């Protein structure tokens, strides 16, 4: 017969600052009942402690030991009724995604951008009917969720982040705010929705999932892969991939058909000569160093720039070179040509840097969305773009992911890094099906520079490949 944990003390599990605290078990009992134990002894509070996200596992384990009478003081969430004021009917693929997730209410739904992940999540939230926290990568997206929830349910959701701290049963926040505040909020929400959930596995951001006791978790993303290979953490923190839709499958159906047109610009002779002389500076330096150290490479150079002014000069030359590529004046001329070509159609320009975005904004006097824009200005620019009072806007990475941009069928990508995910997300912005039917993506790169190499890397992704008939 099994011995009881500790005779007289009652067994209580509480939520304490992002962790679970268990009283009433001694070490022997922990070993006996838990084996692979998440529990650690805390001498400060004389209790066992575990990350809050083990909560479901703790409940399951106690369910297997019916003889133990335990008090569960963790949940501070309540059941709520969610009015369905304006819910759209789900398409077949959205419904399938929702069903796949609903089996266990834990897992990641992978759908290309623009296929209505938000709708899926809104239905999941309504079905769960409990305290819910929606976590998104940036402020814009957080406000966008706020608007979507309001429109669909009439609920004015709480906001945590961007200087606001208004907690209510349905709440929106950002990854950074969630990670900071989860020790205080971790038992108030039974469902967590992680939008663009590939952002979660950062070392600090993980706490947004770890320090929450929520048994139900929904991750949404178009691109679960991370370059650092941390995507397996999503399995642990949210749950397995429960539904995957490839971008190829979505193309042409929900998303607009699109063409990719790549255009090269050449550096002006002045830019070219500066570019080449800077290139020589870098090459000569590496050449000289390789006389002594044959395997001298870029990384060593970066390290050396700490103590060697010449290495530092080479590095600055390299950075200047990149900036010349990025801001080549001819890019502005091509943009002008495209504006002419698409006069009367809304156009959005994506830039690789804030500096270039400002160059474009000042040259054409069109609004630019940069990270410094305050909420009101962003909303004003977006709504002005939507209602047609602005013919075109320019953005840097701010708009990379998720921000709704209706009726855009012409996008111009200028420069930018080679990250596959970045390019894919950018594509997602243009690919929305709109009244024009087809979408057009232009990519402007600088000929005979590293800009071109980066562009080739981008194209390797299947989103850029021609549609197979």
């Amino acid at each position: 017969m099994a011995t009881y944990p500790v005779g007289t003390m009652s067994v209580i599990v509480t939520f304490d600052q992002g962790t679970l605290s268990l009283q009433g078990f001694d070490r022997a009992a922990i070993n006996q009942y838990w084996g692979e134990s998440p529990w650690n002894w805390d001498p400060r509070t004389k209790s066992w402690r575990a990350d809050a996200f083990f909560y479901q596992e703790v409940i399951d384990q106690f369910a297997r030991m019916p003889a133990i009478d335990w008090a569960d003081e963790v949940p501070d969430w309540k059941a709520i009724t969610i009015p369905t004021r304006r819910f759209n009917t789900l398409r077949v693929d959205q419904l399938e995604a929702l069903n796949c997730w609903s089996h266990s209410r834990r897992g990641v739904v992978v759908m290309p951008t623009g296929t209505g992940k938000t709708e899926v999540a809104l239905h999941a939230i309504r079905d769960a009917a409990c305290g819910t926290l929606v976590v998104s990568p940036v402020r814009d997206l957080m406000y966008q969720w706020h608007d979507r929830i309001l429109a669909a349910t009439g609920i004015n959701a709480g906001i945590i982040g961007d200087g606001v701290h208004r907690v209510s049963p349905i709440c929106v926040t950002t990854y950074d705010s969630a990670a900071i505040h989860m020790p205080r909020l971790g038992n108030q929400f039974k469902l967590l929705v992680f939008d663009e959930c590939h952002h979660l596995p950062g070392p600090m951001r993980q706490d947004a999932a770890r320090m929450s006791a929520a048994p139900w978790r929904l991750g949404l993303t178009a691109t679960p892969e991370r370059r650092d290979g941390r995507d397996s953490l999503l399995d642990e923190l949210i749950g397995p991939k429960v539904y995957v839709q490839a971008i190829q499958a979505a193309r042409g159906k929900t998303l607009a058909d699109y063409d990719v047109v790549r255009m090269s610009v050449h550096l002006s002779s002045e830019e070219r000569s500066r570019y080449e002389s800077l290139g020589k500076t870098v090459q000569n330096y590496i050449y000289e160093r390789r006389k002594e150290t044959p395997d001298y490479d870029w990384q060593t150079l970066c390290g050396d720039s700490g103590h060697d002014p010449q290495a530092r000069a080479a590095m600055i030359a390299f950075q200047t070179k990149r900036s010349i590529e990025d801001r080549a004046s001819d890019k502005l001329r091509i943009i002008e040509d495209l504006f002419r070509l698409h006069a009367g159609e809304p156009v959005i320009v994506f830039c690789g840097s804030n500096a270039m975005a400002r160059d474009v904004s000042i040259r054409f006097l069109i609004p630019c969305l940069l990270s410094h824009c305050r909420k009101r200005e962003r909303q004003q620019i977006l709504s002005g773009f939507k209602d047609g009072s602005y013919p075109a806007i320019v953005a840097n990475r701010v708009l990379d992911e998720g921000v709704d941009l209706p009726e855009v069928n012409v996008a111009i990508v200028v420069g930018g890094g080679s990250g596959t995910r970045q390019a894919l997300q950018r594509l997602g912005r243009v690919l929305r099906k709109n009244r024009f039917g087809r979408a057009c993506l232009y990519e402007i790169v600088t000929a005979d520079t590293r800009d071109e190499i980066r562009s080739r890397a981008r194209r390797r992704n299947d989103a850029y490949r021609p549609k197979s008939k």
Partner: protein
Amino acid sequence: MLTKEQSIVEYDFSRQTAVPDRLHQKTHGHYLGIANELIAIYHKRIGETRQAIHQAVRRRLQDVEDCPTRRIAAFCKLLDDASEYLRDESGSAAKLRRRIHALAAPMHPLVQRSDALFDHDEFQAKQSIAAELGIPWEEIEARLFADVIEFHRLKTPPDELDGGGLLSRYNVAQTQSALYGATTMTVWAKDDFKLILRYAKLARLMHSIARQGDDYVFQFNGPASVVRQTKRYGVAYARFLPGLLSTHDWRMKATILGPANHRFAIRLTDRDGLRGEVVSEAFDSELEKMFAASWEETETNGWTLRREGTVLHEGQTVFMPDFTLRHEVHGEVLLEIIGFWTPEYLKEKVVRLERFKDHANILLAIAARIDDAIPDLNIPRVTYKTTLKAKQIVAKLELMLSPCDRRSLG
């Protein structure tokens, strides 16, 4: 505090130590002159943009043999922190942008040379907008992004900061930023242990305490620290450091997670020459501050007030009441103020009070709206609405001393 991108830490794998960047007089004497020059750059460039000023700093440091990029960035950050920039808080740049984009929209696209299809050329359009606003275009362009950090203009350069002061701040800041990676910290303290504990509390660190000979040994960390190694409380250690540096007679060891999750130690004592500048905030809250002020203005019948004068400890737990009230004849009463806090905090407080109520004479001042949340602990209490008045406390003390309610004081 610095960002990670401005932080320089050297990891010694053989000795398993981490050494934050440090500019010593002996090895880096030439930096004193440089630091003064950097401050002079700021003083010379009032009204210029942050970008231009940083460029000037970079140019000055470019050819210094041993000045890594991160050190340059750290100097810029510390000098910026000691300066004041115009940040366009009224939002006039955003308003200007909106105006201009609205005026330009009907002319889109602005082309280089107008033709039959597009008759708005860039130059003409800009001139007409400038005329409409009555501001020259060059000035419009200069003001258009005045709210972007790089384009903030310097208003006040570092005041009361000399080269030595800058280097001292640099050294502290680098040690702070190394602590971002800390998972735990141990401090061995002597006489100043109360003050040290207070600074740790202000930085929101948890602690456990033990005696080791003459030393109080504090282990500082956070709730999740027993569950896993976490850098979550790293910023709290960094915030705590200047306070620690301002006290005496201690040594500290922090464990930090470095490259490849190896553990490294940072060791420091009060004799290592780092100087902490603490804005001495005597009180944790406005409430305490106002109470202390009202004490000054009240006739207190011989009672004196001291801030956190007494520490009680039992085993691993410490209790530091907010104030110590002392009377020549009647002895000591410890005053603990309980304002509005989370339920968990109150629960913990009750446990702590239960534990320590027989160690000393304690008087509680409890906010009226949470009065019900604190059960009767057999500890005298007063309640207050929004501010706690000295008069109330003095009256209660008198009552506690009156024969009918006299406790064994002193």
